[in-house]
């Protein structure tokens, strides 16, 4: 009877999870997706809990309660911190898979060699390698995003790095194969923890050479790993629900990774093994032109006289928490009959969709948010392109400078607008350390300063009646 409950629950939960993701196709139905997901999860947990072999209810209750105590505050972080929260949750997912794998291994050792079939042992090895590398890799990513002091933000590279990294992973895989071939050998007890240790180490090494601009891709890849580790756990425990739900998560991570890679014109391997930091010594733009600075009054006038303004936000807007001021500027301009649209580059920010969420938080209607491919054909008709803390995603070097690290990356064609206003924190080059010809174009005017302060000043120009 309870077996039938478990099987039925697995089918119901899988169906609900598929509905949940299906409803994410439109912001109008998306909230329904959360309800379906919660329901599916509740069904799955209860059906497992009522099984007769669950006897230590106190333990289960305590762990679940602890999950609520930590989970609720984690869901209330400011939206600028969502990338690190996401990385942290990938870490938790990896940890859970790794620990269950370790527990199963010790159980099988007690229960005897019959447990170690080739298939299950292979799945177990995959589970712990993926689980522990996702755990430490995601922790490192979360630390970098949170700018924890003892984790270097800049990519750290050294000669032979890829050799070392692949060596560590290779060693874990070789030991894993040995374990699958000789699961009952006395050495298995030592080999298994070594595999765990190597995977843990590999996770750290994998993220060390990765910098902020690659984070959207890396978070997506870690997302896929976390899903796949759940799939492997399903194989180990002979549980179909783990396989289906893990596969849904894994395919989501995979699709997002592909989209992010495409948006940077880079391959998976290039992101993971070709640290951005190493290729950037080259290419100085031939003629060093001067910036032209614009006053707040002048910029406000340009904006007011425009018919179409395209705002291009980047990570700088997130850092400065400028989204609410941007909303005020949006209100002021639309009130004056100016059409304002937001051009969103797929890798703007630190995770997929980061800019959309920040702008939605500031109550900017999502109908004003436009994808790169849609806005680019309209850029020549755009009177003012207002670049807020974006750099590489509007750098024309991606189109023109062969040999530039971002060459070939699709960009938002801000340079084709009639006038460009660029807000920039400092006069230093952007994350990738590449000069940006956009800033010295004839029709570009710079506004130096913190994005929030600059936009606040612009809004003041409009509201104080200096303009009307």
């Amino acid at each position, binding site marked *: 009877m309870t077996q039938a409950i478990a099987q039925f629950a697995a089918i119901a939960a*899988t169906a609900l*999870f598929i509905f949940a993701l*299906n409803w994410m196709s439109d*912001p109008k139905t998306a909230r329904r*997706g*959360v309800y379906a*997901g919660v329901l*599916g*999860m509740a069904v*799955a947990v209860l059906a*497992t*809990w009522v*099984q007769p*072999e*669950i006897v*230590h209810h106190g*333990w*289960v209750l305590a*762990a*679940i309660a*602890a*999950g609520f105590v*930590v*989970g609720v505050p984690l*869901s*209330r*972080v400011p939206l600028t911190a969502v990338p690190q*929260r996401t990385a942290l*949750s990938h870490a*938790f*997912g990896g*940890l*859970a898979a790794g*620990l*269950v794998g370790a*527990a199963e291994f*010790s159980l099988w050792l007690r229960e005897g060699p019959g447990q170690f079939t080739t298939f299950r042992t292979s799945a177990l090895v995959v589970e712990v390698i993926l689980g522990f590398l996702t755990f430490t890799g995601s922790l490192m990513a979360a630390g970098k995003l949170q700018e924890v002091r003892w984790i270097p933000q800049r990519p750290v590279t050294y000669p032979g790095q890829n050799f070392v990294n692949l060596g560590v992973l290779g060693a874990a895989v070789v030991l894993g194969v040995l374990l699958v071939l000789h699961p009952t050998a006395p050495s298995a007890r030592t080999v298994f923890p070594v595999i765990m240790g190597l995977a843990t180490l590999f996770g750290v090494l994998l993220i060390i050479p990765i910098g902020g601009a690659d984070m959207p891709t890396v978070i*997506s890849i870690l997302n896929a790993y*976390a*899903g796949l580790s*759940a*799939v492997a*756990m*399903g*194989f180990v*425990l002979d549980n179909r*629900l*783990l396989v289906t739900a893990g596969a*849904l*998560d*894994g395919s*989501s991570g995979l*699709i*997002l990774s592909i989209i992010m890679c495409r948006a940077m014109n880079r391959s998976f391997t290039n992101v993971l093994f070709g640290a951005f930091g190493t290729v950037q010594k080259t290419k100085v733009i031939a003629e060093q032109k001067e910036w032209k600075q614009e006053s707040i009054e002048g910029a406000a006038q340009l904006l007011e006289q425009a018919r179409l303004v395209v705002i291009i936000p980047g990570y700088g807007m997130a850092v400065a928490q400028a989204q609410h001021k941007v909303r005020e500027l949006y209100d002021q301009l639309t009130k004056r009959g100016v059409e304002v649209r937001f051009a969103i580059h797929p890798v703007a920010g630190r995770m*997929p*969709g*980061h800019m*959309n969420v920040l702008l*939605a*938080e500031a109550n900017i209607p999502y109908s004003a948010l436009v994808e790169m491919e849609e806005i680019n054909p309209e850029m020549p008709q755009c009177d003012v392109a207002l670049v807020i803390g974006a750099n590489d995603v509007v750098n024309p070097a991606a189109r023109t400078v062969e040999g530039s690290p971002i060459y070939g990356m699709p960009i938002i064609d801000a340079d084709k607008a009639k006038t460009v206003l660029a807000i920039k924190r400092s006069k230093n080059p952007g994350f990738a350390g590449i000069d940006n010809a956009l800033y010295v174009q004839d029709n570009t005017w710079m506004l130096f300063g913190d994005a929030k302060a600059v936009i606040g000043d612009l809004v003041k120009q409009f509201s104080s009646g200096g303009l009307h």
Partner: protein
Amino acid sequence: MNDYWSMLFVFVLATFIGLGVIRRVSRLLYTPLMSLTNAISAIAVVGSLAVAGADHPTSIRILGAVALFASMTNIVSGFLITYRMLRMFKKQ
């Protein structure tokens, strides 16, 4: 136990469904998508619960309880933050 072909079969089919469904997800919602799939993949809760609650030696149950805590954290924070973000998306 020797049913691993059917397990792989389920995996492949679920992956194809996943690819099909995720491909249609609105690009506006990639961040909430990630937190939602995070919560869903915390289905590891099922395995963790079985390890933590069954009559195993204490050391093993401790591993299960920590895994259960980690999964539960993902479920709670994942669904809540997804909902919180989705409420912000307004058409006009």
